[in-house]
């Protein structure tokens, strides 16, 4: 039993963090993605794919690096900390799904970054299988040729061209978002969830990003509280601020701990893994929300602007909480039959 990261896992995290800091630094100054018409610069995206980010956990026979979920969470935690754009979540899940469906060619196309995948979360009742019928909330629409539709019964990749996605103006203006209703669209690849567990896999990865958001939010809040002087003292000496930061730190710590536990449980198919994954997503979403809100408030009026970074965490927490499954659905999963 060892829930700490290994040296190798820490190295993955370090590499991702320094790449993101250099090439995709946490931008502030706008509320919508302004510089480029793309969600992520295509060159940077290809570099990320070239570094193997989309193939970390993919088996070597499917063209992957051969690591597992424990290494993937290190990547997604950093993507959360850096509030990075880019369709990493559906990319990684899509490659796994293609591999599980036996289509190694498609898996490596996705893992190489060539074929981009959007993530479609079903709203209400859906049917996912060799065809897909559902109302979908779609994120990372930019440049996607496939949409990954995923619920707890099955996952499927469907052609984006047949989905007629209507773009919306998203709160998190750094992630391209849309909405659609598909009716019996044929899947390119699909797998039953009992077999491939793409749903639990996705919950853990999304939770890792949310945990990263929660951690980064504490870090900027603590940094500001130590520097900002009011009434002759740094505001961090005040218990109201200090205790707020303490609660945020406890929450962030718990969120990542649960992500680690759930990652191992899903990876090793331990009993109760589905509940562990649901708890990881629920708790990390809450942590990301509460900590990002806390970071805004601790920054005072500055936190309300888009010139400091806390708002980026608020936006991202809001988006992640709506991917794959949300609070009520997750808690129902925690309780089970009733």
């Amino acid at each position: 039993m060892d829930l700490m990261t290994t040296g190798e896992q820490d190295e993955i995290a370090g590499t991702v963090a320094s790449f993101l800091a250099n090439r995709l630094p946490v931008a502030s100054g706008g509320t919508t993605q302004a510089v480029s018409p793309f969600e992520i610069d295509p060159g940077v995206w290809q570099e990320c794919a070239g570094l193997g980010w989309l193939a970390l956990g993919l088996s070597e026979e499917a063209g992957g690096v051969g690591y597992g979920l424990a290494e993937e969470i290190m990547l997604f935690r950093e993507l959360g900390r850096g509030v990075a754009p880019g369709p990493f979540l559906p990319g990684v899940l899509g490659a796994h799904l293609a591999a599980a469906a036996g289509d190694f060619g498609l898996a490596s196309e996705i893992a190489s970054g060539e074929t981009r995948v959007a993530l479609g979360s079903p709203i209400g009742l859906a049917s996912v299988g060799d065809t897909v019928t559902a109302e979908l909330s779609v994120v990372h629409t930019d440049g996607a040729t496939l949409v990954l539709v995923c619920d707890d019964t099955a996952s499927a990749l469907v052609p984006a061209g047949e989905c007629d996605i209507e773009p919306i103006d998203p709160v998190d203006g750094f992630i391209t978002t849309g909405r659609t209703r598909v009716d019996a669209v044929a899947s390119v690849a699909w797998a039953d969830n009992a077999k491939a567990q793409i749903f639990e896999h996705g919950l853990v990865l999304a939770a890792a990003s949310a945990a990263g958001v929660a951690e980064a939010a504490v870090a900027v809040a603590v940094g500001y509280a130590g520097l900002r002087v009011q009434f002759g003292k740094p505001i961090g000496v005040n218990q109201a601020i200090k205790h707020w930061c303490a609660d945020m730190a406890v929450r962030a710590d718990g969120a990542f701990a649960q992500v680690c536990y759930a990652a191992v449980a899903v990876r090793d198919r331990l009993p109760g893994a589905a509940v562990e994954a649901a708890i990881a997503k629920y708790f990390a979403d809450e942590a990301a929300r509460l900590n990002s809100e806390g970071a805004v408030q601790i920054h005072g009026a500055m936190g309300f602007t888009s010139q400091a970074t806390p708002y980026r965490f608020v936006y991202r927490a809001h988006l992640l909480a709506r991917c794959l499954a949300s609070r009520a659905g997750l808690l129902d999963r925690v309780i089970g039959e009733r």
Partner: protein
Amino acid sequence: MDLDFTVEEQEFRDEVRTWLCEHVPTQPRPHGDDPDSRDFDLGWQRAQYDDGWAGISWPAEYGGRGLSTLQQLIWYEEYARADAPWIGACFVGINHGGPTLIARAIDAQKTFHLPRILRGDVVWCQGFSEPEAGSDLANLKTRAVVDGNELIVTGQKIWTSFAHLADYQELLVRSDPESSRHMGLTWVICDMHAPGITVRQIPTLDRGAEFCEVLYEEVRIPISNVVGDIGDGWSVAMSTLTLERGTGFMAEIIHTKQMIEALIDEARHRTAPDGRRPLLADDDYARRLGALKAEITVLRSAAYRAISRNRRTGTPGPEGSMLRLAYGDLLQALTRLAMDVFGHDALAYIDRFRNGGWTGAWLRSFAAGMGGGTFEIQRNIIGERVLGLPRDRS
């Protein structure tokens, strides 16, 4: 102890309701960073002025309507019920600058400015906060040097709402460079079109840009624009802040009460996460909505009691701080719950002035802790001034 209104008060309510019903603008207010918002806000102010509804709490001798406390209550209740527009850029003139002039200005200043504010001719803004002096107002550093019959102002203000649209500013400066804290400050009317002023809008997380930074580079302001005496600015500014916490709050409460009812109605017509029943049939959502409805209803009752107390004592007590604190928490809780009710639909940004603009309202609610002192400071005020707990003097 009663909730009765007199026949006269009921007739007054009918009059207000009828007028509002006929005159409330039908198009939504432009968003804060839209230059049209100035015309919209001034136009609505002018409409109220034309029919005698401008400055409802201002004394009649200054052109106001001079309503009684209960009439004001009725006005604000009906204002909210009619979904009348947010006061926007007219806020400082009507609720801060104007009342301060009434309290402290000389006749010439009153005669010039008050009618312009009431008529909707001009926009005022407030120049108090500075980058190094946020909650700690007494720490401000923007300096004014007397040069003949002018003040020469150099420095920087921040969080000045609507400075980019404003004609005048209530400006607080340090006129005595040797002074510290509350001493040596001066409150002066600054012409926002004067040379040396640069206004920069600050983008906010709700896509607004009404907060501004204002830079002053040797801006010359006639000494005749000083209100009160040079060096007496703190006392003048404090008369503003006291008024700020006394008026108009009931409109916000009623408006929020309407928001929760609308959200309950929304939950009646949306589908629960299981896709099989109305969202309101989900006990979790229903009770969270019920708890919020209860809280806003309680706030309404507390405000009624505070108003009743004000009527007897004549001055607003420290209860205002308590209600503000509860209100700020509540507005955040309400819009946050709305995000949960709207689920995936909340991924879309919708401006808060537009129909269904819940995401905009949610993002805006992050500012609720920042108007007139943060939550932290409000809690200190309650602990120390209301409950008499000791202050840490270190």
